């Protein structure tokens, strides 16, 4: 099973096992990883599952689609590496993925 590491703003690491097919947001919520709120439950409607994808994983996770890019307008401190984790599907290729959670979801 693919392993995902979430690194909080203060450096705290959370490593979880995810199932291929679920989203990076779902894997976090299922394993009670703090820093991802997912207020809308994964409908790409709220921007409270905002993460920064670690540089070495940006190519593998790809670019946000238009709807996600629109929704990122509602996030705070958006950077080049910003994604909404409800829009990243876990695959076997993403085994080892590292994402950083922002100081605050907004």
């Amino acid at each position, binding site marked *: 099973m693919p392993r995902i590491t979430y690194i909080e703003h203060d450096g705290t690491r959370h490593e979880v096992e995810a199932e291929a097919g679920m989203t990076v947001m779902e894997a976090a919520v299922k394993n009670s990883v703090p820093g991802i709120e997912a207020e809308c439950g994964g409908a790409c409607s709220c921007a409270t599952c905002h993460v920064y994808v670690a540089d070495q994983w940006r190519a593998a996770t790809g670019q946000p689609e238009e709807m996600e890019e629109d929704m990122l307008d509602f996030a*705070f*401190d*958006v950077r080049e590496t910003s994604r909404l984790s409800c829009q990243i599907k876990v695959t076997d290729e993403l085994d080892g993925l590292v994402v950083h959670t922002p100081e605050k979801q907004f």
Partner: protein
Amino acid sequence: MTGDVIKTDAVIIGAGPVALFAIFELGLLDIKAHVIDILDKPGGQCAELYPEKPIYDIPALLVVSGQELTDRLLQQIKPFNPVFHLQQRVDELEARGEDGFALKTDTGTQFETRIVIIAAGGGSFTPKRPPLKRIEEMEGKSVFYSVRRIEDFRDRTIVIAGGGDSALDWALALQGVAKRVTLVHRREEFRAAPDSVNKMRALVDAGEMDFIIGQVMELHGDAGQLTSAGIRGKDGETSRLDCDTLLPFFGLTMKLGPVADWGLNLNENKILVDTEKFETSQQRIFAIGDINSYPGKLKLILSGFHEAALMARQAYHYVYPDARYVLQYTTTSTSLQKKLGVR
């Protein structure tokens, strides 16, 4: 809008799917309802957050969108002529014993009602507050989430942050009144009406408005008075822009709001209810749908429908204390079918 007090059997706070179905269940028992919601349309989260998203777990409907579910519920409750009071928030509730309650909204609409049903989902939609240092102390003085009177913004040096219709509409409306309007948005593309975007770009080209690609990251000033904003541009560098007013438009989030101050027993911002009547710690006030909490609670629309039906039975006892509740089926009951207008 003060003056007349609306007298009714039930006031429902919230107009999401569970609130709409509550109108149906109450209607079958001849309980008349007025509905209050902060949004400009019924449907709650279904209509506001995910109108086009498919829902697959409504019994007997293979798939239905949030908007279609709302439309179908509205159709179903039509025979009961519910009255909607939209774009209003209930601010005050006063208990009057067995007579029920007096309620008042933020726009001054007043009600006298026998029972209150809180079906407010995640709470009332409120503007999102960017997590910027000092922003709280500047709210109401230098930072505003809405414009009530354009005149209040005359001669101000305004930064408008955001890339949706609200940001664009207000940038256009305040240009000319304000000393200077600067729109700050993180990218070249907008989620707003193309016509507004074109108008904005024309004003920028004419030198009458400024547009900066970037994000507001810092607020500077003191005693609640904004003097400049730190704006991080595309290059990652933050530079200061002198301004005295910030209007952030980053959409809405949900907060429990004034309901939290009504003395009801709460658990982690949810209202505690029993599972027989879905009544709160205060008699005659019910809570159904996502806003309530009880052992085994599942935040599903279908759970809310069930809660609405059981709530209505107890509501009947309060509204018609001398009558006896009899369970009737819509398939066979002549009286229910008359109420539904199918007989």
